[in-house]
């Protein structure tokens, strides 16, 4: 008699775009109160095709094309809107509403009025879209109490975090990344389930290591992993943390890691001043991990300039893998 050879549960490859699409599809199906609105989300299938097929499936009532009026952020009492910004650069047209109406209302009403709304869209630099279309808003939104802010990297992050955001009773800003939309990642069998969510406020260790801790969010998690692979050949083992959530930030995970590795490098696409790395530095100093640091924390960030258009300039305005490798070595004094 032969034993059955059972293969491991089947993982599939899925792009971030499809993961986001699946998340919205599942949540639209699960809860009648959920709907999507934004520019070109319905008949055009989404400016970046993230909402492809949803209008065909759910119709005019649940998937709504809006005029170009970002400020039409609706406090739809009793409903659960997903508000797409074609890019977060345009969210500045509506930022008063996001902060003053969405973020602060539950507090101001002493718990009477909740705002279960999701703001999602591409954030940060793309390719050649120049100064007004390339800004990272993680620090701006992460600054405000009352908002939750998530920044997925891979497809599992995208699906799990978006589903959690939609189910959350609070206003959640979901910072996606246009350059990642078309990138396929492995989706575990667990992630393929309709009930798969990722808790907001918990970071993930993508790679274990003992030499140094690298913390990043969104696209730069990938850069950190690439840098770690190169550094491993020289015997430097990086622990790579995928923040997943900007606010509330999982400082504990970072502290635990730093207390093991004694060195920390943060990596982000946004500008350095008052940014994610700056906040991490401050929090580390204020907590138990400070005494475990063998050198100051290094921040790897975007260059402190508006985004230029020319390719050579744009390439040099953002952290490259070699910048991370360089910074790791400097931090380790190698």
């Amino acid at each position, binding site marked *: 008699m032969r034993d059955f050879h059972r293969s491991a549960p089947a993982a599939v490859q899925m792009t971030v775009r499809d993961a986001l699409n699946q998340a919205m599809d599942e949540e639209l199906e699960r809860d009648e109160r959920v709907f999507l609105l934004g520019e070109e989300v319905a008949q*055009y299938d989404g400016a970046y095709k993230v909402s492809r097929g949803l209008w065909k499936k759910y119709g005019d009532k649940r998937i709504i094309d809006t005029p*170009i009026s970002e400020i039409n952020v609706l406090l739809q009492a009793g409903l659960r809107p997903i508000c797409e910004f074609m890019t977060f650069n345009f969210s500045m047209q509506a930022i008063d509403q996001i902060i003053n109406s969405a973020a602060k209302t539950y507090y101001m009403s002493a718990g009477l009025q909740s705002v279960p709304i999701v703001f999602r869209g591409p954030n940060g630099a793309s390719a050649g879209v120049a100064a*007004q279309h390339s800004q990272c808003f993680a620090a701006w939104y992460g600054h405000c109490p009352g908002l939750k802010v998530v920044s997925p990297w891979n497809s599992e992050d995208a699906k799990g975090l978006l589903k959690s955001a939609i189910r959350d009773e609070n206003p959640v800003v979901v910072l996606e990344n246009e350059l990642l939309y078309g990138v396929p990642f492995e989706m575990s069998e667990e992630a393929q389930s309709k009930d798969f969510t990722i808790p907001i406020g918990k970071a993930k260790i993508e790679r274990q290591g003992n030499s140094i801790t690298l913390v990043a969010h969104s696209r730069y998690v990938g850069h950190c992993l690439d840098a770690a692979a190169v550094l491993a050949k020289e015997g430097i083992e990086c622990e790579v943390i995928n923040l997943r959530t900007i606010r509330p930030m999982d400082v504990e995970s970072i502290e635990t890691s730093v207390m093991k590795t004694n060195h920390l490098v943060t990596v982000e696409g946004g500008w350095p001043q008052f940014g994610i790395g700056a906040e991490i530095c401050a929090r580390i100093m204020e907590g138990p991990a400070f005494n475990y640091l063998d050198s100051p924390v290094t921040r790897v960030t975007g260059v402190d300039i508006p985004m230029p258009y020319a390719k050579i300039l744009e390439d040099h305005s953002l952290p490259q893998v070699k910048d991370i490798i360089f910074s790791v070595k400097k931090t380790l004094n190698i």
Partner: protein
Amino acid sequence: MYSNDRCTWSFINLLHTCFSQGAAVITSARTYADFTTQATFEIKKCDVFKLDEGPATQVVLTRDEGLQYYRTMQTMRRMELKADQLYKQKIIRGFCHLYDGQEACAVGIEASINLSDHLITAYRAHGYTYTRGGTVKEIMAELTGRRGGIAKGKGGSMHMYCKHFYGGNGIVGAQVPLGAGVALACKYQGNNELCVCLYGDGAANQGQIFETYNMAALWKLPVIFICENNRYGMGTSVERAAASTDYFKRGEFIPGLRVDGMDVLCVREATRFAADHCRSGKGPILMELQTYRYHGHSMSDPGVSYRTREEIQEVRSKSDPISMLKDRMLSNNMASVEELKEIDVEVRKEIEDAAQFATTDPEPPLEELCNHIFCDMPSLEVRGTNPWAKLKSVS
């Protein structure tokens, strides 16, 4: 003047044969003295709002003006088509919003204002950069991100500037309050200049535009608001975006004109009327130009999922601005086919030369990465991607 036209070649060969055989041939060459120097045209009447009279419907076009408009529109057309090509070859990257089909707007407007006046528009701006004084070379080199670009490669398609032209703006509608601000400066300085402030049918629903209408009217600012209504805001038709598609009336207390934006003479006449209105201290005026873009919203939009190919074809065959002008000039003996063909050849060459420059000019030097953050500041240190990267900014 040898053209690529086969008929002309065979005619010339025939002449050559005749001459070489000693025959005396009297060729009837068209001299410029044979052309009509000017003609009067009947143009479409504008719909008016809060106005007792509108722009003239009988207009005079001189031969020189006609040739100039033709050349300018043709240059803009060819430049945009070349940009399309370069984008598909990935030599232009990022966003690229093309203007072909709308040439009559930019040319007609410029024909009735002075270079000392001001103009601001949104991101479909290559044509305006040209009519405001940018060269094809500088524009194309900006699209390809080279040091010879009009913004030294720093701005790209959506951020081109030149004297009295304030871009080139990426955020829909944001340029409108800026335009009113320029008009305020004109009034403040008493220089009799005005500002032409353009936006699209999509932007027309932005709240900031209504705030601007209010202030411009209240303070009687010399601003001509122009809505270039090309029927679609990206993929959304005007009917699906606007509660009222009478864009020329949406200024409520600001007088308005609805103009055939495919006819350069209509646009010119309406702009003349509007400029007079502003310069006489009456305050702002609003023009809606009904126009059409052949390309999709941008190079990443095929432009056929929300409109039919038949519609695009119909506009091309019945209302193309360049063809309209050409037909007018030819049927009134204001120019010859050969002459216009010659212009086409010259334009083609100019575009080719510009493209050649745009693809061979080097990229901006890395030393210039951080320049021009602040004005009037001596050298400033700028943080690079890591704490050891100390870069320099010079203005």
